């Protein structure tokens, strides 16, 4: 099992495309030994290098060179191509989530989404599939994937219905935001080199009825399942976490904090902007009202009222961008931070299990030989599991990092662009007004020309 993983990562390394969707430092990808780590000079996750940890000391100043990494750049950029409206264009699969519809049964009311898949993948029988899925179905898929790949980083699902925001479950905006997040979820899965090959993923996209599949599956009470649900039944925690994962934990914590802050700030900006818009909408018409009182001044006063109205509309649009593009992205990455921490916990748990069994092995007095042999086998198995989990996490961490960078960069760039656009449009509005006011210079009256 382990070697197959290594081989796959090796392969990825060798064929990793260099384009980063924009800017990329000079190619530094290479494979070092049997363990494939992104070797990026200066970025290298070099375990011997204590410098790594300096980054997270409280005294780290911005000025000092940022040492390590976290996360290193993506190695699977080949899977990420440009994004368009409907979904992500990958090499071979294209998924959209749309057409939210209300379904009413005797017991409950819920929303159902249409999931449309177009693919050229050989392992799919057809090239197009259309299925109906509800939120619960997505939850099921995620659960299955977590079971099978406990230390892979799976993009978060939108949250369940949350009371505090006073958001009605069937409120249009809520549904739309959720729809987009669900689409992103599936697109991210499709991009993932391992998860996209998962049988449950295929089932989810292709089978009309999921109920049958939902009943199948491994014993939920298996240890892996328990780990997935975050319940650690083993008495002891992990003894010593390798430094690289320690560093990941710290990164996840800090990153989570930053995302939470950015999310909050963005929400605050939205709120302030809405209030600004409200006041603006009261202010503009006052000029028009004054215009009605005047004669000579009617035209310029109406002009100003018109400008304010147009600027108000531009402000609304800019607001939409914040709420529909930037905010959801930040929010998703806030959820990602939690995913990172969960994944690290699971890895710890796997290691703890191994350590527990290993302790049992080393401490047990040689009783029955048969037991010892079984124990040794179990320990070996668990050890391999730890190796696999670590490798998977390591690799996926780097992939996730690249994806995160691209997503956040794109959102921020789009936001900045939108703002530039906003100011340019408002500029044009006022310049047009100014042009309309160009009149020939008026004659000065003798001695009665007041200065302002």
């Amino acid at each position, binding site marked *: 099992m382990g070697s197959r993983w290594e081989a796959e990562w090796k392969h990825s390394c060798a064929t990793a495309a260099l384009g980063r969707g924009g800017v990329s430092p000079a190619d530094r990808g290479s494979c070092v030994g049997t363990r494939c780590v992104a070797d990026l000079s200066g970025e290298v996750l070099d375990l011997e290098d204590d410098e790594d940890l300096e*980054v997270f000391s409280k005294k780290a100043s911005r000025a000092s060179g940022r040492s390590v990494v976290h996360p290193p750049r993506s190695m699977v950029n080949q899977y990420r191509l440009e994004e368009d409206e409907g979904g992500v264009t990958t090499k071979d699969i294209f998924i959209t989530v749309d057409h939210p519809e209300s379904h009413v049964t005797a017991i409950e009311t819920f929303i159902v989404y249409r999931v449309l898949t177009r693919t050229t993948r050989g392992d799919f029988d057809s090239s197009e599939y259309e299925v109906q899925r509800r939120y619960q179905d997505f939850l099921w898929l995620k659960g299955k994937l977590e079971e099978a790949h406990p230390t892979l980083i799976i993009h978060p699902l939108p949250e369940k219905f949350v009371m505090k925001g006073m958001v009605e479950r069937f409120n249009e905006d809520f549904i739309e935001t959720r729809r987009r997040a669900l689409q992103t979820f599936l697109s991210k899965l499709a991009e993932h080199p391992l998860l996209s090959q998962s049988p449950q993923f295929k089932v989810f996209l292709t089978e009309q009825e999921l109920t049958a599949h939902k009943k199948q599956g491994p014993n939920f009470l298996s240890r892996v399942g328990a780990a997935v649900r975050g319940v650690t039944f083993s008495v002891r925690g992990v003894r010593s976490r390798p430094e690289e994962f320690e560093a990941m934990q710290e990164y996840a914590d800090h990153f989570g904090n930053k995302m939470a802050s950015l999310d909050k700030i963005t929400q605050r900006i939205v709120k302030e902007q809405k209030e600004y818009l409200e006041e603006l909408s*009261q202010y503009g018409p006052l000029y028009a009202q*004054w215009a009605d009182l005047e004669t000579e001044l009617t035209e310029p006063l109406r002009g100003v009222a018109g400008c304010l109205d147009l600027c108000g509309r531009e402000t609304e649009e800019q607001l939409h961008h914040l709420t529909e593009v930037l905010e959801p992205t930040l929010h998703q990455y806030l959820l990602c931070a939690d995913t990172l921490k969960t994944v690290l916990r699971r890895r710890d748990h796997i290691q703890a299990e191994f350590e527990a069994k290993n302790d049992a092995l080393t401490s047990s007095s040689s009783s029955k030989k048969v037991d010892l042999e079984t124990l040794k086998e179990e320990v070996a198995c668990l050890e391999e599991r730890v190796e696999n989990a670590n490798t998977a996490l390591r690799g996926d961490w780097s992939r996730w990092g690249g994806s995160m960078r691209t997503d956040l960069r794109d959102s921020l760039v789009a936001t*900045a662009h939108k703002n530039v656009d906003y100011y340019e449009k408002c500029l044009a509005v*006022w310049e047009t007004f100014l042009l309309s006011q160009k009149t020939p210079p008026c004659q000065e009256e003798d001695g009665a020309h007041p200065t302002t």
Partner: protein
Amino acid sequence: MAEDRRDRSGCTSGSEPIEDDLDDNENTTMVGSASTLSSRLEVSVAETEKRSGKNAMNMQEMFTVYLVETRPMEALAEGRNPAPDSLWRRYSEFEVLRSYLLVTYPAIVVSPLPEKRAEFVWHKLSADNMDPDFVERRRVGLENFLQRVTSHPVLSHDNILYQFLTEEQGWKEAVYETGFQDKADSRLRALSATFRVRNPDKRFVEMKRYSDELQTHTSQLLRARARVADRLYGVYKVHGNYGRVFSEWSVLEKQMGDGLQSAGHHMDAYAASIDDILEEAEHYGDQLKEYLFYAEALRAVCRKHELSQYELEVASQDLVSKKQQREELATGSVRTFSLKGMTSKLFGQEAPEPREARLHLLEEQISEGEEAVKERRAECQVHVGSAWVDVLRFRQQKDRDIREALIGYALMQINLCKKGVQMWSNTKECFLKM
């Protein structure tokens, strides 16, 4: 003194030719508009200073003084650059000057002073009178006031005004000697009195309505503008938090760090930029405020007309009734029901001597009354004539000034937008480097 008829170009009331009859104030002159004070003298309010002194209650207080500078236009026209004459004035002295002008020229829409206290402030703007920004805006406002009155066709010839500009010490005495203080009080009373005038000049009725509406609109506008400024301030300032968090985040990231950090700096700059933007925008607010206060001055002129007209009507009515009494007395006939009439019918007429005495008294009163009516009518007509000319002048000035103010406003918005474009373009560049 004879009035230069050229000034009365706007007069359409059909009133009789105006004679200038403003009290016996030796300080007033009516001269042609061509030679206003401003054409002879360059006036400015150049500096401000803080002083301390004892006030009326013998308590120490801080106040600001303003340096009023004057230079002869002739010298400037010849290209020379003489040192200005100057003197210091407090805001309260400006108030006295204006009060004097209001009382002395009731037919003129007198320019207002900049506000006494900061009003319509958005929350970060200081409402403190000693705040340097407020003092600076007030300096500009006082300069504007002086420039307006010194270029006014009528006001600019006032001697008290001239002394205000040129005599630091003697001015106060001179202005109080004019006795304007008493008139100021009665003027204020008259402004708020209620009386029914039967036949006011319709143009002034219309103007008064206009002044009320102008006041309403400008004050609403100023209030809304302050609220908008407040909100805009909030939007910009919150972006400063992006700056902070981007910087913190940049520490975590190797690849994105540089881009994030410089983006953060731009966000800080963006948040800081609103302070200057809004401070500059106060100039526009001041322009609107000037016309808010002008509305009051316009209203006062209209009210003065109503008062004059009313007094004329009262005097006329009084004359009519006195004439009626005379007629009744002379002919013994009673045209209207009166107690006198009844008693004379019942008890016979009075003896001739008291009746003659009363008739004689009435004749005197009637002749006085006729004089009074003549005077009042003349007053009224003079006022209507001069006032209407100035109202038209004011209207033209207002149209010009407000249009300019709106253009200035547009320029400010353009400036704000250009800054925004630049800042976000820079930020976008930084993000692209992430």
